């Protein structure tokens, strides 16, 4: 009885008893959720257009952040470094298309997946040679990212919002909105969705696969850069950041691999679920449940809705 009380009653009593703490927890969940969504978005972009799960997305986040910080450390002004990093991501996209995707065209998906592993280790090596392996500090001040917190007095307590988190949420939302409009409204967006559905049909109407691949990898690179800046500002810019990319997996399972809204909603559910779980139910299990709770949520989802919340349900005719 005592255990049941602790699982089903006590946490909600706590939530009701201290609403300011609840709001604080929800806010932190929302912010990490938005950042998870940003990582997941990078995966979704590439998966949609080429059917490949890009294992290298995590290292692209690190590589982009590292390039930005590294260039600045070599004396390049912050915003010029930002522009140069964008150019580097474009070069990377073109390189990936020329040297990896084009020679492997028409190969099974698993081969392309393995190739993204290769890309991962290549980028780790390249990053270490050029910028060194030690953790670095994100150039938040130079990029005019806000510091400090806003405090909101409510319910007899107060909730504090980090300005950096607010900025992250705004930037992530803006990127998501732009990508959604890009996919829905433009000729290239339509071509992109077309390539995702059928390569040969896309070719037959004159869509250039090469061009589309460069565009998606570049877009994924830009998303990686934004993710790298935001995560880097919250912790350090180090190779350990790529582990965070694995958090995108449960988000993708939840939201569906092909859905941009799915990545966002999935990210937010995972982010909030994690924080609530850690704060209210964590003590029952002696804490530390934040690291695996997301995967549990995803597992339950897999049982009941394998295509994810917004994924396309594939009905095969036999």
């Amino acid at each position: 009885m005592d255990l049941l009380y602790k699982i089903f009653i006590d946490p909600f009593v706590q939530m009701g008893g201290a609403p300011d703490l609840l709001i604080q927890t929800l806010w932190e969940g929302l912010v990490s959720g938005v950042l998870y969504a940003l990582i997941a978005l990078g995966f979704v972009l590439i998966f949609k257009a080429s059917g490949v799960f890009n294992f290298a997305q995590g290292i692209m986040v690190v590589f982009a952040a590292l390039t930005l910080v590294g260039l600045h450390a070599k004396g390049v002004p912050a915003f010029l470094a930002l522009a140069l990093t964008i150019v580097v991501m474009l070069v990377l996209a073109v390189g990936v298309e020329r040297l990896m995707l084009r020679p492997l065209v028409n190969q099974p998906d698993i081969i392309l997946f393995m190739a993204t592993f290769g890309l991962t280790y290549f980028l780790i090596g390249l990053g270490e040679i050029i910028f060194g392996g030690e953790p670095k500090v994100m150039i938040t001040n130079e990029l005019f990212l806000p510091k400090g917190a806003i405090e909101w007095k409510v319910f007899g307590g107060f909730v504090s919002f980090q300005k950096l988190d607010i900025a992250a949420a705004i930037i992530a939302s803006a990127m998501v909105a732009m990508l959604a409009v890009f996919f829905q409204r433009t000729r290239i967006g339509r071509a992109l969705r077309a390539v995702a559905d059928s390569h040969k049909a896309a070719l037959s109407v004159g869509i250039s696969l090469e061009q589309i691949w460069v565009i998606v990898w570049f877009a994924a690179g830009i998303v990686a850069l934004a993710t790298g800046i935001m995560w880097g500002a919250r912790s350090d810019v180090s190779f350990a950041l790529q582990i965070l990319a694995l958090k995108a997996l449960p988000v993708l399972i939840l939201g569906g691999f092909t859905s941009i809204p799915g990545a966002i909603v999935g990210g937010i559910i995972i982010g909030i679920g994690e924080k609530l779980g850690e704060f209210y139910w964590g003590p029952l299990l002696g804490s530390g449940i934040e690291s695996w709770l997301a995967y549990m949520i995803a597992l339950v989802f897999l049982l009941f809705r394998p295509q994810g919340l917004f994924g396309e349900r594939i009905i095969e005719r036999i």
Partner: protein
Amino acid sequence: MRAPSQSDIAAGEILLAVENVSLSFGGVKAIRDVSFDIKKGEIRAIIGPNGAGKTSMLNVINGFYTPQQGRITFKGATRAKMRPYDAARGGIARTFQNVALFRGMTALDNIMAGRTLKMHRGLFWQMLRFGPALAEEVEHRKRVEEIIDFLHIEHIRKVPVGRLPYGLQKRVELGRALAMEPDLLLLDEPMAGMNLEEKEDMSRFILDVNQYFGTTIALIEHDMGVVMDLSDRVIVLDYGVKIADGTPDEVKANQAVIAAYLGVAH
């Protein structure tokens, strides 16, 4: 869509010529030294038993396959290999044997995708749906609506094509090819798996496209009744070799063709 027009090539002239094309996959010879031509404005059928190399031939024409030997002359330009992008830009559209549509997209978006090469406005304006990009979108949408009317698929405009029955999917696929306003339309078994009524509808669309828009058509089909009724000239392939070429009546009377289809007594 275009009104019946005098394009850059006058009616009766050769639009596409295939010369001595051979294609093999490893040791398998799919096409052996085949030559034929397609005249402007005609309906040209390619027939033959299963595995005769018909689809391979279409794939060579629109650049999916690169033949080991031979040349292709399209609109007067000769080349050893065609790239799919160049074929599409040059005015070759096609449909596929086992429908290749963009399953997640609506019928309307599928057909709009056929106009990819015709839209040129900048991304930025397209995203804002403003100014010249809006005018362009409206203009292309109008053309696409004409095609939708023509094919009688108004009611399924907003339905994701993956959910449509097979016959309608084939029609949407034809619509997408027509949206490219092609000079040469390649149809790979446009009536496969259809019932009689659907076949009649499709036959009428093919004839209308040919007559009213002046589009040259090359089609592969197994239903001999349809082939003989629709086409101006027929080419017969068997094991990758051309065994007959001529009007439907000539082909029907050809001994080699009868042998290929019915077998011969040994």
